[in-house]
């Protein structure tokens, strides 16, 4: 059906590109505490070692900000992790999952998308 070129190159570029400037560690640390009252420390740790930058790979807004459909970051616009350890705004990944039938794949790594239990 098509030509799968530069998959590797793309992935490399994605990693490099998904930073949009001035978000720094301390800013998302406080955001993590703010939006997650249950304190999912393990999830946070896996997110950092997985080298995903601090922006949502779908809307490209910072994780300490909210998705384009929300006005305020925090509890109303939570983050969610996949089994593959990639994180997105819940609203962003839901839009993607709902648009993909029968099976959605993670936008970052293309593994079958499963919400992390």
């Amino acid at each position: 059906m098509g030509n799968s070129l530069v998959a590797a190159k793309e992935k490399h570029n994605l990693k490099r590109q998904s930073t949009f400037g001035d978000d720094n560690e301390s800013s998302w640390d406080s955001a993590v505490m703010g939006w997650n009252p249950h304190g999912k420390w393990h999830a946070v740790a896996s997110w950092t070692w997985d080298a995903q930058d601090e922006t949502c790979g779908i809307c490209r807004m910072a994780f300490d900000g909210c998705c384009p459909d929300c006005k305020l970051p925090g509890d109303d616009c939570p983050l969610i992790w996949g089994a593959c350890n990639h994180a997105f705004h819940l609203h962003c990944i839901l839009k993607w999952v709902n648009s993909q039938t029968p099976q959605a794949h993670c936008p970052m790594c293309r593994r079958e998308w499963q919400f992390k239990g």
Partner: protein
Amino acid sequence: MVDFARVQKELQECNRDFEVSGIKVMPKSDANLAHLLGTIPGPLGTPYEGGSFKIDITLPDGYPFEPPKMQFATKVWHPNISSQSGAICLDILKDQWSPALTLKTALLSVQALLSAPEPDDPQDAVVAQQYLRDYPTFMGTARYWTEAFAMTSSLGVEDKVLKLVEMGFPEALVRSTLVSVDGDENMALEKLCSG
């Protein structure tokens, strides 16, 4: 509804890296970010080298959940690109799209397609046949098309302005239009004619 905040960020990001990638994306008009014009340099060591290829980009309402629509505005001779319409056969622009891809990564993939034709999965059957059966002729035609259609910037800016003013367009409008299409006289003419 297109996520225009994301598109804005993408444009900034892409154009910031222009020196390295040679890839550019510009809105076709200031009023509408759903119609864009991409530019990719022909890859070195291919018959497309030295060419500057324009790509029409239309963002569907569902972008980035649906892939951008891309087609060559510059005529190109390649098995996976229609020599008639500029339509591109590339999986990431179809079922392999991911919302984590961007206009820039998509254009990089199109550029990679120029380097690595896949004649077994053609968009243009005539070109693909030629590629498979008569490679030297394919290379010659691809080169000729690059020189004829993708190297239009040989004229100086003033020459282009003069040419378009002689056609009856006001000079100020000609200049601003040329800037908006990155100096491409054919695109400028098209834009001037469409008002």
